[in-house]
């Protein structure tokens, strides 16, 4: 004769856990574990913590600093902003040479050179004074007040010549005297 008594919750739980011991087959275990090993063997990765932007919040700040510095340097190195040291050094080059270096396109038509001496006849044409040499006619720029005293006469002139394509086309007289 059997006497059946009700079980309480704890007894049910305990009984279930004692009786419930089913396990997957060892073949299935092997299959799953083999797959797990294959997965990591196919793409090995480091055990060390993976570096990411989240772990290194300072890196974006460093990158931004480099970017700003690079932009600054690039701006400093733009050709139009470069001033050669030789040209800013005082007394290292003559004024005409500096002008020629700074604006060669302007100096092409009217070059400025060291004072030169010319010999020729002083003439006036169309309100402009000219020095007529044996080779060419040279325009006298900013003629001196007494230029009229030398009109139609041979004179010895010293001044800065303006050239174009190697030829003297004008002169700024520093000194003039009869030849």
């Amino acid at each position: 004769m059997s006497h059946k008594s009700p079980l309480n919750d704890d007894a049910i739980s305990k009984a279930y856990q004692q009786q419930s011991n089913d396990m997957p087959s060892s073949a299935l275990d092997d299959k799953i574990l083999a797959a797990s090993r294959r997965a990591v063997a196919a793409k090995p990765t480091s055990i060390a913590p993976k570096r990411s932007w989240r772990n290194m919040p300072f890196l974006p700040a460093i990158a931004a600093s480099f970017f700003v510095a690079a932009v600054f340097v690039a701006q400093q190195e733009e050709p139009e902003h470069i001033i050669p040291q030789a040209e800013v050094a005082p007394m290292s080059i003559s004024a005409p040479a500096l002008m020629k270096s700074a604006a060669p396109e302007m100096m092409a038509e009217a070059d400025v050179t060291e004072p030169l001496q010319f010999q020729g006849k002083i003439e006036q044409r169309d309100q402009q004074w000219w020095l007529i040499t044996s080779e060419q006619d040279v325009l006298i720029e900013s003629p001196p007040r007494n230029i009229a005293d030398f009109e139609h006469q041979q004179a010895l002139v010293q001044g800065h010549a303006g050239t174009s394509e190697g030829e003297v086309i004008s002169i700024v007289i520093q000194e003039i005297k009869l030849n």
Partner: protein
Amino acid sequence: MTKTELLTDEQLMLNYGKGDAAAFEQLYQKHKGGVYRYFLRHCSRADVAEELHHDIWMKLINARESYQPTAKFTTWLYTLAHNHLVNYYRKNSKAQTLDFDDIVEPEDELPDLSEQLTHSRQADELISQVELLPAQQKEVFLLRHEAGFSLEEIANLTKSSFEATKSRLRYAMAKLKQGVSYEP
């Protein structure tokens, strides 16, 4: 005792994601029984349980690199298992058996005697009774006794209310007490 034996499940999974195959083996040995029995009690068929068990662990292997320990590892594992089981039932036209809404179940939902006897021939009396519980009650019972979750964790995992979860466990225990008795 090796260093890895001291690690939590979450750390083991992270290590596996970084290529440590031994970490996975530890996790598998620790949880394979619970997961397998979770499926076996629901399906009552070893071949189906093995298939589902295999699927879940493969999902876990494939998710190794994206795993983030935002919750307990076991919560993640059994959430995967729960969802996979729901999908399995849907595919097999049994969606209603694992529809985890909060419908109150009738108290007198015991399996019929012939079904009970058939199962009892194949397994112990208590195991058979568990397998014959209504799906929702069985789910709560198994998550409680195979995975060791609290009622609150089970409620979260199954997306049910705490009260409904508590009721299901109470119904399950009541039915098991009715179906199982011992001889002193």
